[in-house]
């Protein structure tokens, strides 16, 4: 169970005001499902997942100068930025992706000069997962197909990926983050958060 922090303590520890907190909530900088209502002996109190909210507030406060709240909101949302495209050289020069993964994808998308956010995201996730050495390229392409077919409908539900393998057959699950009660196999990919992959990539790109 993750550690929680009450709204009151959060405001004291981070030195922000109610106005700021609710402004960020309206702008979707803080996801709705981080506001957790619980009843306490003093009535209802709102709690947050401590680690996540502290990190997020630090990010917001550090970037506030210069960037508008709407820019920040784009960065933290789970939406795919539609207009963004990057050339292969940009991706390599800014060390967003490794040469290996880009050349692998180049074989698949022959002659493609520019990549949109979704392409880059899939390359980014592939690099992360293939780097662990447990998945084959074939597994990876099945996972990406499943993800791209379903992304729109699950993006706001904090999706995670887990992969199991038995007798050489791999089984992939897209599920809500941290919400598998039990499985009798040890996953080769365990609870890989799609949301944090999107966020990390946006941090690098935008």
């Amino acid at each position, binding site marked *: 169970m993750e550690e929680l922090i009450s709204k009151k303590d959060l405001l004291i520890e981070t030195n922000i005001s*109610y106005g700021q907190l609710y402004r960020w909530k309206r702008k979707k900088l803080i996801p709705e499902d981080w506001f957790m209502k619980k009843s306490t002996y003093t009535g209802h109190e709102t709690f947050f997942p401590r680690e996540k909210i502290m990190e997020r507030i630090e990010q917001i406060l550090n970037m506030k100068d210069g960037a508008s709240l709407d820019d920040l909101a784009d960065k933290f949302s789970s939406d795919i930025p539609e207009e963004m495209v990057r050339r292969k050289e940009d991706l390599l020069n800014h060390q967003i992706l490794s040469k290996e993964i880009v050349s692998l994808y180049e074989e698949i998308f022959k002659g493609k000069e520019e990549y949109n956010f979704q392409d880059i995201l899939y390359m980014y996730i592939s690099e992360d997962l293939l780097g662990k050495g447990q998945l084959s390229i074939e597994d990876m392409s099945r996972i990406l197909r499943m993800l791209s077919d379903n992304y729109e409908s699950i993006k706001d539900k904090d999706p995670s990926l887990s992969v199991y393998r038995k007798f050489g057959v791999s089984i992939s699950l897209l599920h809500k983050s941290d919400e598998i009660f039990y499985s009798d196999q040890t996953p080769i990919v365990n609870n890989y958060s799609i949301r944090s992959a999107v966020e990390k990539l946006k941090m690098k790109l935008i």
Partner: protein
Amino acid sequence: MEKRDLKLSGATVATGGEYRDVRVSGASKITSDIICETMNISGAITVDGNVEAQSCKVSGACKINGNVKSDDIKISGGSSITGTLTGKEITLAGGIKVGGDIKSNLLKLSGEITVGGDMECEEFRLTGGINSRGVVNCEKCELELAAKSELNELVGAYISVREGNGVTGGIIKSLLGKGKGSLKVNLVEGDEIYLENTTCEMVRGEKITIGPGCRIGTVEYAELLEIHSDSRVENKIER
């Protein structure tokens, strides 16, 4: 292909679709989703579907069974919308019922408004009365109450709740005949808060002024707390 206009009057039934200008009056019915540039409906119109328009004006006793998304939404009379309202500027006047959430930059309400869901906006102005089980979250909120009102939570940066006076307040009050304007709310949280005629379990904020006619359970404040002699606060906690 050039988009067509939709102009109906009387008691006609039309299907939705994509149009340029939509102007419907009388007792007509639109049976599916509609996308258009301007939407103007009046009378006793029923829309069974979602509305997406650059501007949307509804008057009379219309019923929209769906969501409305438009930069500029103006609804007056006794209309009801079962879904959500999303816009940049939303004005509701009269006895309006909204089933879902309202999201807008500017939200202006007058009359007796009922909202089923939450309200999120940058600026919220109300004269009259409001009833909502949802949360109101806005940067700046000014309520001028002329009728008994009820909200679940009222949160944001600047919050002001006053008993409505002046011309509009007087007219609405005499029309509604519901006695003096007051608010019942479970929680108020903000940076700067002014309350009048408010009954509330918990008020939290930086600078809090409790005006006349309030009954408050607990106030948690940081910088300033002023309480009118006519009001009662059970617990005061300095943060």
